[in-house]
């Protein structure tokens, strides 16, 4: 292929623009405010690990991480428990009713959950679950259902009809067909949905802020971090806190970057 200097230059220029704030964040995490102001891009003169401890204690990140893990795990289990049987049913049926259900989920996929933020807060109050982690555990699966059901259905459609017939002849009911045939074959889809939705749940911010709230014993890590901002923000501590909260996601990414990239692109490639 021919050389293409312009594309190369532009692609690396954009990469630099992406990397610069991340680099700035990482070095700021180990500096005092004064050093951040005077030598913004230099490596720290003295590495101030103290910032991490201050951030951890001030924002009570330990409890916040625990809350985030708890909410994400319960929500993903619930999501799969609801979406897998639905996808199985849709993959095995091809009539008008099935197309109506698929259509409903396709339309739901397009509507950003934010559209109904305020009525959702009202719902949480009516259910007596305002200011609790439980509401997020129940609500997040609903926002994840359209995409999860549609993706899983696509994967379950790949199960060969002959396999289903022979299993059915052996007397396998829906439960055995689902657990022994469909889920194993659609496993890549289940993994993709799990990764994609876990990341979405982990990163959710506005609903966690307005419904679960900022009380230290229930707030998620996304809500806890911005509490480090004040009239006299210690930028070093804020950067350290940001690094601590981004880190779990990056560690997960470095452990399974191919799978994760597949999962996240699958989420948007769906048609």
């Amino acid at each position, binding site marked *: 292929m021919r050389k293409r200097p312009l594309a190369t230059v532009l692609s690396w220029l954009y990469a630099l623009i992406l990397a610069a704030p991340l680099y700035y964040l990482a070095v700021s995490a180990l500096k005092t405010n004064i050093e951040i102001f005077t030598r913004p891009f230099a490596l720290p003169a003295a590495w101030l690990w103290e910032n991490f401890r201050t951030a951890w204690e001030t924002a009570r990140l330990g409890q916040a991480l625990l809350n985030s893990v708890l909410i994400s795990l319960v929500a993903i289990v619930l999501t799969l428990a609801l979406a897998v049987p639905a996808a*199985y049913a849709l993959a095995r049926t091809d009539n008008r009713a099935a197309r109506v259900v698929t259509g409903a989920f396709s339309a739901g996929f397009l509507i950003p959950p934010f*559209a109904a933020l305020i009525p959702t807060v009202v719902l949480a109050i009516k259910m007596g679950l305002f200011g609790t982690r439980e509401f997020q555990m129940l609500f997040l699966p609903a926002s994840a259902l359209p995409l999860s*059901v549609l993706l899983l259905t696509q994967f379950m459609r790949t199960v060969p009809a002959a396999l289903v017939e022979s299993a059915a002849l052996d007397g396998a009911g829906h439960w055995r067909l689902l657990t022994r045939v469909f889920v194993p074959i659609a496993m890549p889809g289940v993994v993709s949905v799990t990764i994609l939705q876990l990341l979405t749940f982990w990163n959710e911010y506005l609903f966690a802020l307005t419904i679960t709230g900022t009380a230290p014993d229930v707030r998620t890590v996304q809500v806890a971090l911005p509490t480090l901002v004040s009239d006299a923000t210690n*930028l070093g501590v804020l950067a350290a806190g940001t690094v601590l909260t981004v880190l779990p996601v990056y560690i997960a990414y470095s452990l399974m970057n191919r799978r994760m990239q597949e999962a996240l692109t699958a989420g948007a490639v769906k048609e």
Partner: protein
Amino acid sequence: MTRSPRVLWLTVPSLVWFAVFSVGPLVAMFVIATLRWKGLLYEPTYIGLDNVTKVFADPTFHAAVRNSLIQVAVAIPVMIPLAFMLGYHLNTKPRGYRILSVLYFSPGLISISMTGMIFYGVLSPNGGVNGLLRGLGLDSLANAWLADPATALPSLIAIDLWRGIGWTAVLFAARLASVPGEVIEAAQIDGAGRFRTMWQVAYPMVKDYVRTLTMLQFLWTLFTSAALILLLTKGGPGTSSTTLSYLVYAKAFSMRDLGYSQVVGVVLLVLGIAGMALIRVLLRGDNR
């Protein structure tokens, strides 16, 4: 054969869940829009279309419409073509493309609240951008980016682009990987230039996908700007960075007028649908 329609009952739990937590609130929005409701702890009263009149006469609402239109009209036409070209480049596997794709991908991992905190530091008066400008001897350009009415909204749009371009490029690259390589090579052997191959051969083959992603990015930009604005500018200074999305949030939680907030929510929904229709027309699949 167990191919009975009965199995469709298994979709009922998920439909009920979706109806209660997603469809219900969406419908309730239209009801709340007709109420006088001063904060969540008070009793609402029905006032019909009075909220609509109030909203449409409010200069803040006009500013929010203008800002939202500017935001999508700048962000989307810049983001999508650049992302497509970068995705195309990424798909040719240039030297170092692994590093590039990891970097492009990373905004997809970082939440909105983390992004807000990163740029809180980068854009603060003594932050990274001004530090860079001073280092280059351009002190006169240094600015309080988020506190200056002239640069608050442009800064937020720049953050949209910072996160959106790379992430969308990775998605385009994933899609372009499914275009048969021979087609591209054949075009190049025919002497088509690189730019022409990209736009006249590769682009038409993935046009439907470009349209889908354009719609998704449009909806995300239009609807979800509230979070970043809440974290960085609170809609200010004045109303210079108030978008419709932020107005929905602010009217409900800081200004305690739920009816007003939900009228804006309905406007947002209407704009979202109109914008999708427009994108569909502009990027029509003409099967060339």
